């Protein structure tokens, strides 16, 4: 059972580069890369809110539970 982060897909759909998203959200590119690869333990609500605002999506569009 894993939580998949679908950030790559959303970025590709909106034609936004990771560097731009990192700058908009206020996190480092390194941390964004960790998030994209699902190598983080958690995501803060603040970060999630900024990502959703930048990508104009819902948290559910970003995360997917795979049993």
């Amino acid at each position, binding site marked *: 059972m894993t939580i998949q982060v679908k950030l790559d897909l959303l970025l590709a759909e909106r034609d936004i580069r990771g560097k731009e998203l990192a700058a908009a959200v206020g996190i480092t590119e390194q941390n964004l890369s960790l998030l994209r690869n699902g190598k983080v*333990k958690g995501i803060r609500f603040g970060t999630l809110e900024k990502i959703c605002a930048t990508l104009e999506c819902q948290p559910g569009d970003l995360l997917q539970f795979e049993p």
Partner: protein
Amino acid sequence: MTRTFCLLITWGAVAQIGLFSIAGVYYLADQDAFAQFTRSTLQLAIQWETVTSNQLYGLWLLTALYLSVGMTALYFLYRAFKSFAQGEFFSAQNSKSLKRFAIFLFAQACLQPLHGALASVLLSLNHPAGQKLLSLSIGSNEVRIIAIAMILWVISELLIKGRELANENQAFV
């Protein structure tokens, strides 16, 4: 201010280790000075005219062993506070060093009465039968040091927990 305190403690520990080492070598080389120092510091009813140089060497060794515990504690204090001064508060190494300092401080406080007892037996070996000494004394100082060591032990555990929290926090984006 915190950094200044940390640096003061760091250099204080280094200075004490250096001073104790120099004093140890000096007293080993100059036995008369060591005898005089012993007479002035040990509050025991020793018949000093019966004390031989071998007994003084034995006492020097005993004291060196006892002080080496304190010096090891100072070494770990130096290591911990050197890192604190550099701004590294939550590293695993610091927590271990502080814990080891607490352990050695505790050990030295516990060994203090034993050192006094062994010193009294050693120095009164040549006393006439019935006048040999075994002196055991525990002062409020030892109790205070043991309390401080226990407090530091708990603080080092807090640092370890703090480190775990910092690691966990780093895993959140």
